[in-house]
């Protein structure tokens, strides 16, 4: 499988990455290179092997349900470009 120019543009839009017309070609080549790697791996016979969702074969550690965090929004908001009344301000979004 390999990607075409339109798919590259679509993926870039979903990932909010701006690609100039000159960049689509090289990006397409790079991603298709990755696909070639995947194709090699898919050639391996994995019959009877249960798919793993994580490279480590261990299970998730769980936390007790208890509140351990305090209000640190003032410290966190010191690096925010704009805040007001405790809110982060962002360019207006209306769907």
């Amino acid at each position, binding site marked *: 499988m390999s990607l075409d120019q339109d798919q590259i543009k679509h993926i870039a839009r979903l990932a909010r990455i701006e690609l100039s017309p000159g960049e689509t070609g090289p990006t397409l080549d790079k991603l298709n290179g990755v696909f070639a790697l995947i194709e090699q791996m898919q050639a391996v016979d994995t019959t009877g092997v249960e798919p793993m969702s994580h490279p480590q074969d261990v299970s998730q550690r769980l936390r007790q349900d208890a*509140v351990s*965090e305090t209000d640190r929004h003032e410290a966190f908001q010191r690096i925010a470009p704009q805040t007001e009344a405790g809110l982060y301000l962002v360019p207006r979004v209306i769907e």
Partner: protein
Amino acid sequence: MSRSDWEVVIGLEVHAQLNTASKIFSGASTAFGAEPNAQASAVDIALPGVLPVLNKGAVERAIRFGLAIGAHVAPKSVFARKNYFYPDLPKGYQISQFELPVVQGGAITIRVGEGDKAYEKRVQLTRAHLEEDAGKSLHEDFHGMSGIDLNRAGTPLLEIVSEPDMSSSAEAVAYARNLHALVRWIDICDGNMQEGSFRCDANVSVRRPGGPLGTRREIKNLNSFRFLQQAIDYEIQWQIETLEDGGRIQQATVLFDPDSGETRMMRSKEDAHDYRYFPDPDLLPLVIDEAWIKRVRDEMPELPEAMKTRFVTEFGLSTYDATTLTASKEMATFYQATVNAAGATLAKPCANWVMGDLAARLNKAEIELDASPVSASQLAGLVARIGDNTISNNIARKVFEALWNGECATADEVIEKQGLKQVTDSGAIEAIIDEVLAANQKSVEEFRSGKEKAFNALVGQVMKASRGKANPTQVNDLLKRKLAG
């Protein structure tokens, strides 16, 4: 055109906020109504380098739900990233479950309609999975910008997905109500719809009977049962009219506007999100062993269906009464406590009082059952005194009022203080009857000349003279005998 030419297909997705103290992947509080961002930790606002750690309490609630609906609780489930960009989702993805959800399958029985037209239906569930909630965007004018509050980000949700088994808005509402009662019953969600703790999305399509499935539209974020009903009814009507006018339905996400009662398009399929799910490398597979499931099962309360059946078989209640009494956990608990105190032989009068006078009085005063001024043991004391003929039903209402107003602590105290004990001494009742007959010769003559109504007037006079305390059955018998004699 006619609705009967079309078949309606509805599936529901419900987001139930789990009532944990802390968030699903961080130790921040989930309490509602805090100052903006006061409960958004480094994990919730997605600072670089932080790692999510799963909350055991959230998993346990998912297990409880799975057991309650007879589902398969997956021994191994996986968290995945659902990728999309929105300012109230700071990581750029929501942690959810995709291929391997924690709860798989299951079903619930819904009751639809009332009276003779009432029927039961089994609704299958597809799955229920754990995920995190997003923050909130405030679009009021902040100098042309939007304000972001991330307190809700990371709040644990159980997304409960049904099969498309419902075929009317009434069935969809019955299903949502049943689910709402269940999550509160097993204490995994507070069910507060105004605060968004229980939100419904409805997938609606129509088709010709027996024909292929129609294209569905998804109505998002319905936060009341009334809106759910209105939105689905409007959507069904709109789809049928569109199709009958020769139009086509396009797959879309729509919003319901409660003011206009209409649904409107939010986004069409063309710009629908392409979520690119993949397993979250920050989280290992969630393993739930048999021992944990058993522990949760042992701690489960008796479920509404089981309790309903028991009320019918053990207490001899009608199915209708048993259904009403198990409609909420508060009601069922209160009723069970009343019967425990009054004794199982009085189960039926206990049911009548809980569903009748008590419910009516609470309704009138706009008080919830768990704040009832009359406790279960007080009500049981009252029912017991009717049961042993100390007071009549009419006098019992007076006693109930006194208990409601907090005048006395027990029914016995009210009866004693107000001298309400029923008179069952036939000598005393006869003496009252004699007085009444002497003073009401006109009614006596009317009765003897064949006017049956005059008898009731005399009974009324005797009851009045006894200040309601004479045993009504005895009054009837003795009066009949006197008049005949």
